[in-house]
């Protein structure tokens, strides 16, 4: 693995960890944006260098596709969630672990790393060598989703888990990317719409109080 790629992945893991532990929704969204920006940066630089050195239409198309993917993950999705937060409230909470939450987290952690062990015991093709970092970021995102009562933080966790797959997603065919981006943004918009509607009904973002409120 190249040093630059490793560095970008380490920054993304750190941002994911910080996001999963931060207290306010605003901070969590910022860390999500940083995670997406870092994880997509290397691929973006590669296609940019290809574009500058080659100056051909294929490189231009590839650059726009990668840029759109990077921009969507690092700016559009965070802004959609931020807009939802602005319409409701910046909920402050700490990671709370009930017995069930802890069980989910431990199960995901153990399964993810057993899975890795399982793969590494034979060999891992070079095309998917970033699997370890993907698994780590995915686990941290699951931790964020399992330990919070704020629906926006859960949504940020979902996006972080999706961003974790970026090293693989960047290799998908160019003609598929626009559809994928539209769908990711669509799901975020739908989720924010639902949370705002629920906030209107329940007057709180605390998930544990949603069903209890008459």
């Amino acid at each position, binding site marked *: 693995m190249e040093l630059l790629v490793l560095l970008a992945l380490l920054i993304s893991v750190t941002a994911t960890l910080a996001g999963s532990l931060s207290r306010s929704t605003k901070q969590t969204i910022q860390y999500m944006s940083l995670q997406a920006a870092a994880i997509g940066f290397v691929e973006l630089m590669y296609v940019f260098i290809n574009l500058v050195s080659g100056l051909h239409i294929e490189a231009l198309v590839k650059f726009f596709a990668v840029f759109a993917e990077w921009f969507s993950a690092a700016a559009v999705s965070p802004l959609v969630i931020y807009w939802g937060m602005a319409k409701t409230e910046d909920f402050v909470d700490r990671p709370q672990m009930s017995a069930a939450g802890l069980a989910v987290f431990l199960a995901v952690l153990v399964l993810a790393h057993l*899975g890795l062990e*399982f*793969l590494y015991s*034979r*060999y891992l*093709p070079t*095309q*998917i060598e970033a699997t370890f970092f993907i698994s780590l970021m*995915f686990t941290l995102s*699951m931790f964020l*989703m399992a330990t919070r009562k704020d*629906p926006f933080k*859960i*949504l940020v966790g*979902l996006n972080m*888990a*999706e961003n974790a*797959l970026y090293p*693989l*997603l960047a*290799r*998908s*065919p160019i003609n*598929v990317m626009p*559809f*994928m981006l539209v*769908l*990711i943004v*669509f*799901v975020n918009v*739908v*989720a924010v*719409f*639902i*949370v705002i*509607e*629920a906030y209107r*009904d*329940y007057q709180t973002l605390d998930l544990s109080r*949603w*069903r209890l409120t008459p």
Partner: protein
Amino acid sequence: MFSLLPLLTLIVPTFIAVLCLFTNPFWFLKPFFKRIEKESLMLGTGATLAIVLLMVPDVLAERTLETPILFLRLDQSNAAGMVAVAAIFLVVSVFNIHSEKGGRLSPSMYNFFVLLFEICMLGLLMAYDLFLILIFVELTIGVSIVLVAHAPIKLASESAFKYLILTAVSALFVLFAVLLVYILTGTSDITNIGREVNPLMESPRLMLLVVASFIIGLGADIGLVPFHGWAPDVFPASTPAVNGFFCAEPVAFILALYKLVYPFYAVYPSPIILGLMVGVGALSVLTGVVMAYSQTDSLRMMAYTSIEAFGQILLAFGLFTPLGFMAGQFYLVNGAFMKMGVLLSLGAVYHHTGTNDMEQLGGLVKVMRPVAVTYIFCALSVAGVPPLSGFFAKWLLYNTLNEVLLPYGLWASAAALIVLVSVSMVSGVYLVRSFQAIFLGPLGEKWKDVKDTPLALWLPAALVALLAVVLGLAPGLLLRLMGYP
């Protein structure tokens, strides 16, 4: 054989959906659309069913219709599912005439999303490209969540959020598996995956990882145990018509799961793959039947009944035999229709009483006789009582298990029969008990003013009840549409 009909099946509802959407931003078109909102939905679903039926003669002649440019294909492996999905949407859109009273979405947006949902189901059934399947899966998640949130009750937004998170996380597993397959094989065409030597085909462990990801990913969308957490909340939170439309979802998703897992099993026939499919199926059957028994909310009971049925279907598909595929398809299509019949009957009850709590209901047969009759027919078919179609579905399932288990001894086959009959008896008991709770006994004071049920509210379920009898007596009508891929 090249044909544009598979593509047309998607284009026609898309066109009508976009026309509906077009009226949304223009205030002066809204009064006009209000007058034709129900009819436009019926036009969209009816035209789609007509195109699907146009393809049936070719399927009966064992021809494959293909639109290669968009990786769409119709043959005997998905034709019955296509007919079922298109028919379910048309029948429920008739029910929708009286049932839909408005919600969070405007009528034009509601029609748009219902038709988009139908497009996703049909697309999932016909697609044979991994990325196309992924796009339809993701789109289905977004659209179905919007439809759940449409219900104008508090519970809807909460359930929709839960549904979104569980299914969106599961979609990440599908995404992971699709990307892994594409990166390691260089192709996204399902039919080509196992044809050449590549890093994926050389590594059984990676193949197992891919298969497990597909089962987790699509299993959560279907509602299989242990990924079923959303189902018992979503059923009571959705409107009756949306519950009816949702009956089409497992048809598309379970066939898509089979389509995705089978190529790997064909290359690497591992008992682990078999164990994953059959294990999840068996767990769903047991959990579904045990949980359904204790429910007092009719829709929660139906949610667990559905989980039990999905488990039995996965048992049939998961054995990867030609008979298993036929049994699974028959059970899937018949189960979707019968579940729709029960849900539409319960929808008619909800329409009149405003409750799904069976403890509050009773004696409704006196004021809702057609609904009561259709309910009991569909419920008995779900339970597998002869001579209704559900019995034939369960009989096929037992034959599949018998074919696989008999080489291990007669006791294994007998044990399978005993378990299946026991499960059917328990489901029969709670379904008949629900009929007794809702329709029999003294009529409550609150329900004495209930008026006659409009035709549109009971006719769709009555057609399903008729189908239960017809398919029970002549199952060959449906079986002719099915074939092993």
